[in-house]
């Protein structure tokens, strides 16, 4: 029930935003993230944006995963 889907804000009109979910667009309410701006990525739950997403943190997390995979690969080498 706490499913939330990430999307990008493409347009803002008052407290209503148009969100792009990778091709599909839908409206969402911005009351809970009042400082969100166009091009921000947000999590949408029950018609509301509930939090902004941080692209840099996502890249950091993925980098950590890649390093771990690389370390395992290196261990396997004779």
């Amino acid at each position, binding site marked *: *029930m*706490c*499913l*939330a889907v*990430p*999307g*990008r804000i493409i347009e803002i009109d008052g407290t209503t935003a148009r969100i792009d*979910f*990778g091709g599909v667009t839908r409206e969402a*309410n911005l*009351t*809970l*993230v*009042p400082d969100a701006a166009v091009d921000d*990525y947000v*999590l949408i*739950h*029950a*018609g*509301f944006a*509930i*939090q902004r*997403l*941080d*692209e840099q*943190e*996502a*890249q*950091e*997390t*993925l980098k*950590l*995963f*890649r390093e*771990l*995979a690389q*370390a*395992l*690969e290196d261990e396997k080498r004779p």
Partner: protein
Amino acid sequence: MSTLIESAAFRSEPEARALVARIHALATEPVSLMEVCGTHTVAISRFGLRSLMPDGLKLLSGPGCPVCVTPLAEIDRSIAAARMPDVILTTFGDMMRVPGSESSLEREKADGADVRILYGPLEALEIAAANPDREIVFVGVGFETTSPTIAATVAEAKQRGTPNLSVLPFFKTVPAALDLLASIPTRALDGFICPGHVSTIIGSKAYEPVARERNMPCVVVGFEPLDILAGIVMLLEQVEAVRRGTARASVEVQYRRAVTREGNEAAQRLLADVFEPCDAEWREIGTIAGSGYEFSERYRSFDARERLAIEIPETAAVSGCICGEIMLGLKLPTDCSLFAGRCTPRDPVGPCMVSTEGACAAFYKYDRQVS
């Protein structure tokens, strides 16, 4: 496309193999980790993560499905409201099939009651405006991910002067439940996989008391397979340090792209304005102090229980069902004698089989072969 909406990067196989290898290296002694979020329950089962775990590592499902922990009496109250001739009952779809003592919202709708499934609570405001001579009742079920959306809707209704919208406040809050789970003397738990989306609202700081006072490792985890595997690695590292006595438990965040220590302060302010904490009953578990929300004085007129005189029948507990013990982390769905026989998703007996996000329903759909 950004990795924030393209999930493939968080499902990559070489990284998953590396994380699983790390988990196997760390889990040298028996260890039990509990998630407390229906979305985690489903993700762990759907991606088959349980089958990748070493023998001694148990992944338990706690009371993380808001539908599952809604008491029978509150289901009956929703059904009784739907039967009132002037009422349009609005709800998230998850509640429709949940059996009450003698009916369900789905059956009431089939019998002619005006029950409408909403994608979000704001739609109830439009229904209220279009039906000024009817009372619009919203079934307010959910954790802190959902309750701010309903708080925002009610605040908007107050501002607009909407006279015919009310809410059945069945909300639950997560940290109080975690504290109860961590305080069970015979607890078999070594760490919490904390719910990612609840935490976007309340922040990772909300778990600091349970980590500190119960010495219980907590990691806030995202929902993609690599997120969950990485969260398990972080928990195992903490558990090992706590067992050796080299460190006290703490709260860490794996889901850093969405969760901060402080959380969503605008949502927290709204929650504090519209609601106040109350004791709440969790189905099959009991009453947990301070684990629910009721309307604050300013918003009390939105409480459907006060606005409508709703009478409900006496409710009876289901015999043989062990959902309570499952949600407390003491048993697995497969330990229940009713599981997959008398109790199935088509004909559920207990709350964990009712919702698709319940532990028993997820086990039934995905895990039966490997259990």
